[in-house]
């Protein structure tokens, strides 16, 4: 995408982000719906070949670990794409040129220079996808794949042992820590600052002939499977069941939207604070603290929700007691069971998204920029505002987008922490879906998708404008 020009590229650049907006459980449903025994594909096969039953032929089991892998990959690849692409765009083209001057072909240069330099960003993308997969429950349950997360719920709900569940959850977390540690260790020596100086934009080379179409098709494939297919199927269903309570639907949409906006802003503000704090203090302790703060992402949402219930409850009761004692005015539960608790929980969960994205982006700004700004009389706050924020704007938008879309899709936390009589699009999808009527939830599901597209489009604007600048 950054190196070559080919047909439809300007469209594909952002269209590739679209699957991000698709909740994995919806994609899982749609894909199985089409591919399972009773689905369109197998039905057609049976009709064509005249097979009678499942025993007459072999067809890959959709509800399998491979199926789950395929679905999750389709939904999660945009994380890596988004971050890697930003990294490639921001890269100093000179290094790539240098490599070619030293006699390495484009491919070699890519693997030896461009890729290692983009590694922090790619690792962040992969880590996010990994954590997301680790905590993923809906899809794996749908595909009947036994994972650690499924184990947590089994232990918790069926064996009623929350503490054992917590132990497994801890295992998940330590696994994530291990991954992060490995990554950090492997690049202990190199600092990946963008060296300053003239940095002409990497010029994209036009692809011609067959190559161009192959590239175009390759890019279209995930978009079709990961986005167009679910949207198509859902639209089809939505059309059939348009009479679903519109009023409630609008209320849910509003709830979802406002929560997502608040969560996105709060989370990114927190993430920025952490990332900038780490940069300013330069201490590894600060970094560890920040890293720890992001582990919430590796936990299944429900576990996290239950986890924060207790401190929230404690806090609420403490405030309540104080108020009662001092002013004889019971406050009740200030946070628990209000939108506030939800936004807080979302932030805890998604801070990894914002922190990692922003940290990777900040780490590419040479410290000399900070120095220059301070010498010119700016304190760190102004420096952040005038220097860093504009420089990391694409990443900041990326982070906001990620959190927004993920909050829109979020389910388990919402379910547990929401106040009385409170619905969001995703709980509505789930209500209906758990009634085994996903068809009727398709309007809500479709809205989640569409709401995801808006920020994607904003982002794409930004991508193209930043392209014209660098």
């Amino acid at each position: 995408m950054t190196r070559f020009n080919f047909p439809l590229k300007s469209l594909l650049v952002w269209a590739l982000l679209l699957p991000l907006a698709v909740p994995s459980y919806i994609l899982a449903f749609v894909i199985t719906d089409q591919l399972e025994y009773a689905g369109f594909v197998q039905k057609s096969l049976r009709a064509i070949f005249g097979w009678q039953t499942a025993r007459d032929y072999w067809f890959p089991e959709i509800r399998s670990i491979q199926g789950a892998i395929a679905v999750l990959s389709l939904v999660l690849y945009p994380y890596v794409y988004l971050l890697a692409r930003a990294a490639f765009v921001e890269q100093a083209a000179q290094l790539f040129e240098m490599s070619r001057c030293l006699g390495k072909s484009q491919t070699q240069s890519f693997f030896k220079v461009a890729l290692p330099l983009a590694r922090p960003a790619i690792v962040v993308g992969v880590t996010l996808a990994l954590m997301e997969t680790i905590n993923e429950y809906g899809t794996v349950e749908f595909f009947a794949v036994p994972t650690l997360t499924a184990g947590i719920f089994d232990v918790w709900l069926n064996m009623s042992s929350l503490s054992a569940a917590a132990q497994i959850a801890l295992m998940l977390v330590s696994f994530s820590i291990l991954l992060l540690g490995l990554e950090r260790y492997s690049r202990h020596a190199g600092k990946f600052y963008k060296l300053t100086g003239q940095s002409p934009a990497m010029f994209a080379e036009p692809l011609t002939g067959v190559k161009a179409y192959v590239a175009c098709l390759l890019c279209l494939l995930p978009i079709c499977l990961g986005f167009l297919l679910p949207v198509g199927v859902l639209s089809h269903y939505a059309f059939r069941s348009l009479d679903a309570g519109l009023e409630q639907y609008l209320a849910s949409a509003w709830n979802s939207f406002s929560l997502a906006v608040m969560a996105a802003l709060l989370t990114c503000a927190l993430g920025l604070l952490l990332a900038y704090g780490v940069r300013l203090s330069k201490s590894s302790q600060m970094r560890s603290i920040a890293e720890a703060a992001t582990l919430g992402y590796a936990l299944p949402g429900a576990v996290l929700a239950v986890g924060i219930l207790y401190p929230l409850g404690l806090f609420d009761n403490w405030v309540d007691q104080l108020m009662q004692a001092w002013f004889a005015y019971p406050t009740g539960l200030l946070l628990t069971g209000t939108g506030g608790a939800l936004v807080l929980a979302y932030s805890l969960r998604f801070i990894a998204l914002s922190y990692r994205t922003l940290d990777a982006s900040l780490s590419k700004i040479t410290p000399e920029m900070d120095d220059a700004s301070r010498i010119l009389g700016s304190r760190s706050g102004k420096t952040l505002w005038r220097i860093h924020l504009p420089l990391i704007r694409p990443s900041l938008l990326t982070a906001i987008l990620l959190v927004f879309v993920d909050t829109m899709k979020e389910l388990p936390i919402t379910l547990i922490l929401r106040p009385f009589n409170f619905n969001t699009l995703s709980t509505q999808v789930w209500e209906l879906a758990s009634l085994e009527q996903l068809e009727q939830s398709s309007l809500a599901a479709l809205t989640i998708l569409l709401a995801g597209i808006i920020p994607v489009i904003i982002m794409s604007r930004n991508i193209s404008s930043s392209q014209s600048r660098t």
Partner: protein
Amino acid sequence: GEEVNLYSYRQQSLLQPLTDAFTAETGIKVNVVHAEKGLAEKIKAAGANNPADLVLTVDIGRLEEVRAAGLLAPVNSPVLNEVVPSHLRHPDNLWFALTTRARVIYADKDRVKEGELKSLNDLADPKWKGRICTRSGKHVYNIGLIASVIAEDGEAVAETWLRGVKANLARKPQGNDRAQAKAIFEGQCDIAIANRYYMGKMFYNTKSPEQQQWAEQIRVVYLDQQVGGRGQHINISGAGLLNTAKNKDNAIKLLEFLVGETAQGLYATANFEEPVREGIETDEFIESLGSFKADRISLQEVAEQRAAAARLVDRVGFDL
């Protein structure tokens, strides 16, 4: 105004007609939070400030969990005591069943002869090899079923049985109960383990008419009906009053309403569950599925075996 706050493990849309009717009758507003998990923890965490008054569940497991956590208060209501049979409520009246739900066998009307399948044990018979469908063994409904086998026959027998069932599966456990009906209709399997009320839901589904076809293809088989037999396994949906309830009176009113004729009628006709109240007119189609003798084993005992059941499912590799 008057209100009552409800934590519900039961879907909102099922609850809505009931609460609407309650509000219409009493003027008391009903506020609901619906979730599949975590409500017990939410109650615990909030402590004395817990805003909820009642908790509603769709299986005995959750209900027992809340009770075991000491969150429930006894209710001394002549109405409830009279309507709910004693084996369907907690000995100390800490919880009450509102409906029972039979977990039956769906059999293909053509490929399975009447009387061919009689008992739970038959499911392990090799003659069903490659013909059984079910949802995940870890789902609460199946856990309830397996727990009841353990409670009745002990773990060893249950294990042999479950291995037998596993060997007969037509496909990896997946989907929900409705999906099993579809699988039978599509010919992927011949019998399936599922809750009976889904038959009604499919039969009356006008939005997806294909589901009516599924239902029509299926005969419901009740198990262990022979004299002296164990009886058909049932689970319950139930409710309990939280000991931190602020609107205790309203909550009890709602409980009494839910076992009243209106509500029980709604349960029976809208959701096709079996009412706990006697003499409720049931739906015609459900009626046509016949009646059965229910297993009268103590639900509390069953609930106690749930952890064992979950471990058994793992041991047998039922879901793999």
